[in-house]
């Protein structure tokens, strides 16, 4: 049942040119950063004579691409999540799902999964793009895998929060703005605590946890953080939809 909902969501993403255009534009953006990353590598590294200044090509290019990807996703994900529930609310199609033999949990998880599959295409694409470096260099696969996993968890968290805000309103645009603002606040949170990086408030920041992945480190506490973040917002969404049934 979750899969059926996910299929429906994917189908509606690709039913219009919208899905394809978003994929194409995002891939173009990542591709161009990859290209400048590779170009810069030759320029910078040819100037770096001392061994201490030298950085591997994987880290150099990977940092550029994944850094940019996490930033672009901050804008892209709210635009994708905004219509998931609010659009259904506005065009009154929620009763279609509510009166089918599916639980609310399945509806929310299905919608979430549908979006994740769509975003995974992008994460996979970035991974494959960076793999092409392996044709002429010896690259660090562990670094790429950690980064991909980090990016994947990051966009999944963005999506979970976006779905929640989408369930709050009837207007997709309001959902997009709300989720963008809160995601932006959550990502830059840790910069306010630059003097005290171990402050508990900084620990809430999404970027802080993404950073260890971008150093190539898979830390179970970061995995836990993302897992809790995603499940919190999905549960909130389910409760919000349940309130519809109870309060009317």
């Amino acid at each position, binding site marked *: *049942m979750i899969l*059926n*909902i996910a*299929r*429906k969501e994917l*189908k*509606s993403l690709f*039913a*219009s040119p919208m899905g394809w255009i978003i994929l194409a534009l995002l891939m173009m953006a990542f591709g161009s950063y990859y290209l400048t990353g590779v170009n810069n590598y030759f320029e910078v590294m040819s100037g770096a004579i001392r061994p201490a200044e030298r950085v591997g090509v994987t880290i150099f290019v990977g940092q550029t691409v994944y850094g940019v990807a996490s930033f672009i996703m901050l804008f892209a994900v709210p635009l994708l999540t905004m219509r998931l529930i609010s659009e259904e609310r506005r*065009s*009154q*199609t*929620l*009763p*279609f*799902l*509510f*009166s*089918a*033999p*599916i*639980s609310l949990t399945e509806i929310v998880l299905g919608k979430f999964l549908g979006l994740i599959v769509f975003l995974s295409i992008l994460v996979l694409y970035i991974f494959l793009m960076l793999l092409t470096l392996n044709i002429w260099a010896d690259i660090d696969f562990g670094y790429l895998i950690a980064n991909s996993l980090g990016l994947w968890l990051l966009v999944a968290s963005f999506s979970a929060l976006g779905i929640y805000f989408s369930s709050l309103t009837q207007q997709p645009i309001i959902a997009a703005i709300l989720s963008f603002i809160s995601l932006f606040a959550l990502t830059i949170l840790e910069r306010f605590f630059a003097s005290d990086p171990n402050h508990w408030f900084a620990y809430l920041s999404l970027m802080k946890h993404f950073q260890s992945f971008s150093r190539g480190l898979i830390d179970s506490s970061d995995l836990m953080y993302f897992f809790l973040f995603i499940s919190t917002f999905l549960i909130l969404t389910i409760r919000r939809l349940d309130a519809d*049934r*109870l309060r*009317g």
Partner: protein
Amino acid sequence: MSNLTLEAIELTRLFGGREAVKNVSFHLEKGEVLGFLGPNGAGKSTTMRMLTGNLAPSIGTVKICGIDMIENPKEAKALIGYLPEMRPIYKEFTVDEFLTIAARLHNVPSKQIKKAVDIAKQKCGLSHMSKRLIENLSNGYQQRVAIAQAIIHNPLVVILDEPTVGLDPIQIREIRSLIREIGKIHSVILSTHILPEVEMVCDRVQIIDKGNLVFHGSIDELKQHRQGNKLLVGFSKAPALSTLEELKGVVKVEKAESGFYRIHFQNKQPPSEEIVELSVKNHWGLYQISPDQTSLEDIFVQLTENKQIK
């Protein structure tokens, strides 16, 4: 196993302290079409939303074939087909795509989906629209898609909230015969404003007003209200009212619109012959005499207004 397909037991729904539906109980048997009537805002849609599990009742229970809607929503919902007031269709899909999704979500086995879609399309007259985007269909065809969506999994109970809205007369007739056809095997609940529709399609009628059930009975009972004891008479040179009132069996005479008189009589013995004879004798110029049937509208108004006075 009993034949009860749907039971609503003492349903009450509060919206912020205001009772939208008050203590409504009824049941539905297999092979029955129940008409649900009521003025705007009477609580028809609210009741239907509760029956389909879209809205939790404040008090009371809904049972579909004995399965409690609140305790086992999945099993109960699998037996229902629901067409809400606002048609729930995804306009970015084609008719086929949308119906396939609907079939899938309603647990139709994957091998039978294609067949189920075909049957639903055929029943609703959509076969030649398969590849069209729902967005580009006319209002009436969109309504048909919404109806097809509700019956695609062959549900035991079909709940239709104003199904004939936006259809042209021919389509309305087709949909009505479709409803009767479904009603032969399964149960149908149908809400509507159109009173003749109820008479044509439904076996039982239920009238709700301000959240209360004011009438509940078979269509024949409702029709009995219609068999009036009144005559509508037109004279070109009308006599005095008192002359008519003195006739045998006449209870009351009142002036109706455009020179007609409404004559109330007793004992189901219309004094028509007498009136005709007298008219000829006294040159009243009788040009019309006919039994005055109370329209369904009048009964409806009566029933809903009586309640208000109480």
